[in-house]
């Protein structure tokens, strides 16, 4: 068992009988899809929400907020990884890096399997467009825990996207399958903004959790 998992167990034990604490922890771990003894820092935000439902059932109403505050303290000390990241994008390996970081950040924000998949896919599409069409650019990944959502900004100084309306309205079908990517990003995003000119392109997408 990790030090983290032990700390969590000790914390829960202080607020409820050990047998209930264990059950609450086990149920939360199962809901997050983590085997006992395998809890890691990046699971914490997702786990927090699962723990909360158990805590509402078994902990005295007056003590609930105190316990949640202690769990938050445990989380905030741990999840330093949920910081904004800037990924330079130039070669294929950067696409892999971009989607990996988006995935990590979405998990750190507490996103489940589907939001995590959406974030990774959006990062992958935007990074690939940069490599394929602009040659060089950056992806900014900005976690906004207060909303909560993950903002992904792709910037490049490439030649711009011709016929962007046709792409976004789905009237454009390229033989290579590209174009589907940008439209897909728009459909996966909770908010989508695009500006493009002969001096470059900027795409901003908010991914909900």
């Amino acid at each position, binding site marked *: 068992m990790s030090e983290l998992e032990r700390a969590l167990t000790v914390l829960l034990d202080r607020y409820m009988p050990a047998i209930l604490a264990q059950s609450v922890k086990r149920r939360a771990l199962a809901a997050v899809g983590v085997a006992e003894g395998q809890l890691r820092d990046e699971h914490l935000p997702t786990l927090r929400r699962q723990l909360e439902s158990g805590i509402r059932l078994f902990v005295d109403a007056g003590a609930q907020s105190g316990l949640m505050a202690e769990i938050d303290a445990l989380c905030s000390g741990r999840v330093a990884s949920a910081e904004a990241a800037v990924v330079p994008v130039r070669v*294929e*390996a950067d*696409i*892999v890096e971009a*989607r*990996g970081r988006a*995935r990590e950040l979405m998990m750190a924000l507490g996103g489940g*399997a*589907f939001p*995590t*998949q*959406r974030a*990774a*896919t959006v990062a*992958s*599409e935007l990074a*690939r467009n940069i490599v394929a069409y602009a040659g060089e650019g950056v992806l900014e990944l900005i976690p906004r825990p207060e909303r909560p959502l993950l903002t992904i900004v792709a910037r490049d100084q490439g030649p711009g996207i011709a016929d962007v309306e046709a792409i976004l309205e*789905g009237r454009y079908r390229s033989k*290579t*399958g*590209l174009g*589907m*990517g940008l*439209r*897909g*990003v728009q*459909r*996966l995003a909770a908010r989508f903004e695009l500006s493009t000119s002969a001096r470059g392109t900027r795409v901003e997408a908010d991914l909900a959790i």
Partner: protein
Amino acid sequence: MQRDAGNEIPILELWGRLVVPLQGDITDTQMEALQERVLRRVRARAPSGLVLDATGVWMMDSHLCAVMGRLASAARLMGTRPVLSGLSPTIVMTLQTMGIELTSVETTVSLEAALELLGVWPDEDDDEEETDDER
């Protein structure tokens, strides 16, 4: 490119069918290389089916999807029936939201179902088959 040399995607041959177990995070280079290798194997072995097993894939974007579709179409053109198996719910839901359709290839829920579709049937009498295998 050299970096990918060490993690080449394997191509297995099972009962006269080719099986490609796709795993984890697949790079564009790996996929391009795979496409060529698979088609060469199809040519050399004339298998009665090709299974692209996506059970272990954690992300599939429009590009990977397009390459997968092209590989399947090319295999069919060469006379081998392609099947894509084991897409995860999150991948399927994401592709659907994006409006991407994978209509160029038959799909099955699992690798086992894909092999059954291609005419591989487990022996009804399991015990007997196991003893046969052990010999």
